């Protein structure tokens, strides 16, 4: 999952730096992730993992770092298992 997120981030994130230089906990907004690019990234993630981000997870915190994105997706997949 980490790899897929990194690939999509490189493709859609529009970051001025290489994704390889960003730590899992690194702040993506400080690295230059714009609000437009973050939405493109969300769309890419929805397609790649066949999920939909519910509105309550559409906030800055959920997409603030690669680790946060991983946790966000994980929680959606967990909820699906329960349901």
């Amino acid at each position, binding site marked *: 999952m980490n790899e897929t997120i990194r690939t999509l981030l490189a493709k859609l994130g529009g970051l001025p730096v290489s994704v390889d230089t960003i730590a899992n906990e690194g702040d993506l907004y400080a690295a230059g992730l714009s609000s437009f690019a973050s*939405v493109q990234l969300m769309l890419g993630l929805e397609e790649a993992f066949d999920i939909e981000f519910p*509105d309550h997870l*559409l906030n800055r915190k959920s997409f603030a770092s690669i680790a946060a994105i991983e946790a966000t997706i994980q929680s959606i997949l967990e909820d699906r298992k329960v349901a």
Partner: protein
Amino acid sequence: MDLSAKPQETHLKSRAIRVATVAAAYADDVDKAGRFPREAIEEMKAVKLMGIMIPSELGGEGLSTSEIAEVCTIIGQACASSAMIFAMHQIKVSSLVSHGHEAEWHREFMRRVATEQLLLGSATTEAGIGGNMRNSICAIEVKDGRCYLEKDATVISYGIDCDAILITSRSHKDAASSDQVMTVFLKDQYTLERTQTWDTLGMRGTCSDGFIFKGEAPAEQILPQPFAEIAAQSMLASAHLLWSSLWYGIAVDAFARAQNFVRAAARKSPGTQPPGLVQLAEMSSQLQVVRANIVNGLQAFEAARKDQDRLSSMGFAVAMNNVKIASSEMILPIINQAMRICGILGYKNGTPYSLGRHLRDAHSAELMISNDRILANTSTMLLVHKQETGLLG
């Protein structure tokens, strides 16, 4: 000392009305000369409105955004430029209250704002960023505990007349353009070299000239949170809500003038329906929509303040954008209709029914943060955010 809530509210209204009375007396001169409304701002300071949002333990009154919004509406009915300066000041205070309460320097500064009634200015726009204040070109430099900043600020509203400026920049010289901080500079810590003059259609008293800003201050004056968080959690929402409140004030005053016009005609010929009466009913309905939209936005903001995740959520951002779009677009036809009712007496300056200033001031609403930009921003979010389908949420 009266400690019950209601008298304080009335007390706040009576202070706002005192300011509005002074603002109204000078509104036409301020507009004509394009000058700073110093009489109204001095009255704001005299009745101690500058620090009302600051918590009481720091010398303020801890009032809510809704209470500040009411003041904006009252002053907006008298002089939109004065109300806009008041609103912009309070938007800066809201950033300090929300994001500066843990930093000792900023707590002390809030105390000063309340006791000395300081007027805060804002410098978020810059030449070359294409109007997107979430990007900066200039960067703040920190060396040996001091910070240095130079910014080509295309607009600093009432820059010459404010007592301190809150200014955005990149957080360091290698930072991405969106990696911003906001810093407080006191009047004796910066120089302003005027580059552009504010000679505009409306809102002429805000004196929003352009300047080269050069400042030097202790580095502790940089707000600790990233500007991205300040913008999302306090600045954009309070700007949209307070601006909308004063725009509503412009429209309400236009309505009142048209209503006075129709009533005067009705009194002259009782028994017949005066022209413009039906249009007045239509305007009343439109005004109610504008008002309900703002009040709903204020309630959403007060509710979200308790929840950081909600404040930085897409749903909240969309809601605040929608408040701004609707109020800025709806006031124009209302004021226009008022002018049609008042006819030539509305078109002429210097009559009790004059509406030229109202109409010109109101035209700024769609442009300050361009509605096209806001709609583009909302439309991007709608690719993932889903529309609320319930009535009560």
